[in-house]
């Protein structure tokens, strides 16, 4: 899907690469005449080799920005993807992006599984201010973006609604990784995670509705308009229900917090990712639902304390390098850029205002920080945008660029804003100066 949507390859870069490869190819083919065991000259890089190259490039840039400038590592991963992707150097081709898409899906799936598991409905029930804040965030974000897209950009209502559905939510994957990286703990952190998860849930529901609206607007196909959203929601729900039941049943026979349980959790998630891909159901929706069901149905705390292994960071690096490479910077225009900034401004205003006015026991200054912390807009938005665009590629290219550029800007700014909120709230490790050692 990603590869198909990006139809403008870096022809120049590829030509250069082909020219560079001419000499080794000639030597290889001469050698083949003598050495019969040699395979044909490799025309494309092996998936595993590509995986490790993406990993190394993402790590190098991410770590260097983190160590030198204290930037969140995610920014480095996205920049690595942007730099080496089709829009700039072209070292990662569109075909290569297609090759690593299953890994990116798995990474996104695991992170959204975790976001779903973190959605604590019990907390919502015991604190009405949280529900008020979440509803305000969802409603204001959707309508602010919708009005901006119709009134300022001049989009038709269906695409404006699609844009709003795709960009309204915060990015739970970015939030979780930023929180984990900063070792943040506290009320601002907890609320950022909760609002990011709730916003995503609402966004996924709206996304399904928008699919129907898009079918109606563009093809007047009522059957697809009704069945496609149902397929997405019911398919995702069914896979999530079945696999979460399976995971709990199997894990229940194993010691709690054992390595075997970790493997069951990861294997079940990957199984759900595979099923979702087979049935053309969005991976992010399926895995998020699976996480929610795992948390909700786990009355015996079978998997409650089982954490994802550290390897999810490896997958996250690939995910964000791929997202960076996927962003269509070559199609950037100043007007679209300004529109994207305007959309982000409207969205930021909606989120900060919603959290500030929702009240609750958290001090107003900290509520503002929660509003800042939920600004990231990332992986799910990009993937949702491509899902919608994939339906009517010819029609939707222009409309697609606005959410994609908004996502592109927030790929860089989002993690930084989230980290800023956590640091300002004093909830990160080392946020306070702790100077031991003096008498």
């Amino acid at each position: 899907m990603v590869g198909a949507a990006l139809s403008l390859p870096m022809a120049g870069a590829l030509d250069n690469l082909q020219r560079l490869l001419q000499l080794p190819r000639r030597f290889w083919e001469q050698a083949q005449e003598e050495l019969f065991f040699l395979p044909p000259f490799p025309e494309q890089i092996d998936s595993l080799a590509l995986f490790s190259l993406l990993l190394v490039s993402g790590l190098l840039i991410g770590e260097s920005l983190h160590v030198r400038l204290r930037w969140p590592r995610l920014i480095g991963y996205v920049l690595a993807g942007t730099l080496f992707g089709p829009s700039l150097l072209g070292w990662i081709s569109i075909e290569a992006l297609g090759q690593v898409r299953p890994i990116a899906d798995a990474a996104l799936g695991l992170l959204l599984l975790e976001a779903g598991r973190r959605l604590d409905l019990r907390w919502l029930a015991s604190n009405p201010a949280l529900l008020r804040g979440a509803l305000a965030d969802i409603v204001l974000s959707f309508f602010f973006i919708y009005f901006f897209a119709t009134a300022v950009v001049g989009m038709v209502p269906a695409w404006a609604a699609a844009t709003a559905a795709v960009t309204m939510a915060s990015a739970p994957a970015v939030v979780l990784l930023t929180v984990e990286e900063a070792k943040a703990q506290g009320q601002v952190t907890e609320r950022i995670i909760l609002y990011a998860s709730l916003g995503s849930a609402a966004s996924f529901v709206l996304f399904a509705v928008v699919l129907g609206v898009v079918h109606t607007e563009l093809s007047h196909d009522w059957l697809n308009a009704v069945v496609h959203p149902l397929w997405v929601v019911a398919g995702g729900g069914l896979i999530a229900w079945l696999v979460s039941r399976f995971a709990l049943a199997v894990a229940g026979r194993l010691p709690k917090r054992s390595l075997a349980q970790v493997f069951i959790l990861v294997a079940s998630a990957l199984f759900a990712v595979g099923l979702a891909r087979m049935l053309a159901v969005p991976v992010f929706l399926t895995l998020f639902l699976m996480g929610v069901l795992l948390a909700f149905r786990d009355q015996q705390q079978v998997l409650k304390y089982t954490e994802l292994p550290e390897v999810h960071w490896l997958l996250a690096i690939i995910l964000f390098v791929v997202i960076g490479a996927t962003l269509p910077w070559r199609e950037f225009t100043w007007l679209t850029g300004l529109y994207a900034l305007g959309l982000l401004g409207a969205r930021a205003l909606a989120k900060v205002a919603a959290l500030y006015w929702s009240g609750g026991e958290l001090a107003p200054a900290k509520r503002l920080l929660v509003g800042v912390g939920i600004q990231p807009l990332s992986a799910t938005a990009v993937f949702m945008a491509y899902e919608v665009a994939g339906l009517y590629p010819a029609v939707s290219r222009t409309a697609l660029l606005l959410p994609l550029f908004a996502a592109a800007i927030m790929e860089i700014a989002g993690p930084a804003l989230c980290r800023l909120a956590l640091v300002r709230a004093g909830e990160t490790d080392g946020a306070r100066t702790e100077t031991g050692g003096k008498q």
Partner: protein
Amino acid sequence: MSGRLGDFTHSEALTLGVELELQLVSRRDYDLTRGATDLLGALDYDGHFGEIKLEITESMIEVSTMPQARIAGIATDLRGLRDTLVRHCAKNNIAICGGGTHPFHHWADRRICPGERFDQIYQRYGYLAKQFTVFGQHVHVGCTSADDAIWLTQALAEHVPTFIALSAASPFVDGVDTFFQSARLNAVSAFPLSGQCPPLGSWLEFVAHFDFLYDCGIVRSIKDLYWDVRPKPEYGTVEIRVCDTPLDVNTATALAALAQALCRYLLRTRPLLHAERWQHVARYNKFQACRYGMEAMLSDPVRRCQEPLRERMLALFDALAEDARELDSTAWLDALRAVATEGEGGAVWLRAWQAAHGNLNDVVREAAERWMQGDAAAA
């Protein structure tokens, strides 16, 4: 002349006050979490039942009752403080629980609370300050004079193992069973000014001793003395500091009742003290109580023999019967006598849940439910 210590504040005889250090745990995995400043910053509470305040790290919160003449007042205050905290913690997705240690937290992850005193402690003691994320109960008993406070400090020293064994609720540290009933005091022992008050005969001797330590650069205030039992001139009390925070407020109340009855008994009978001799066996007896709880064998330096702590404890409860009646605390002491007889203390309860669940996250969940559900669960 009290010099640097200030005057000893006058208190009504045998008035009581209780301080409890409590664990703030995440409801997601029941590990300790950073929450104290957030909770206090948003707390809507009029102070009716006493104070709620910060402790050294962000995963701890301290509650202290109002001074009360009778144990019923302490019970009311502790329940009120518990209910206030439970209500407020629920809004912030935090659970609260008792116990002397958190069974599996990683001490290096703890955050020091903001505040000049906490910063000073961290700068002075380094990592020990973070390892001091342990949870104790302190009981204050009012004294009418400074000399009485010093005399009680000495007289209570030989009863320290009783308080340790009855409150012991810290068998797990760093995710493992320590084999101790109360492992909390091992964290306190690392501090250079922990241990016992030296054998001092009067307030004047205590002031002279404090001045000596001050002049040597060892102490700056009475708070630097982490003794098992110490006078607290500011409140006009003697303070027993060796108890683990119990797993429910009823046990905490019962321990306060024991302290009150014991002080009344000691002041009434004024037994001959052998403070210097007890000093020699204090660390051994403390270790025995921490390690074995009710099964400890204590050394008696006066009779030069050993005797089981349980026997000594039961004899003490018999001796305190009259004082308990006078103080309306017989039922509370009977509850503790049952713990001593049956050996079903906090550490045993925690180990039983560990055996049932096979993991420590669920042990903390059970402990949090016991603390938060209140009196029915504790019964």
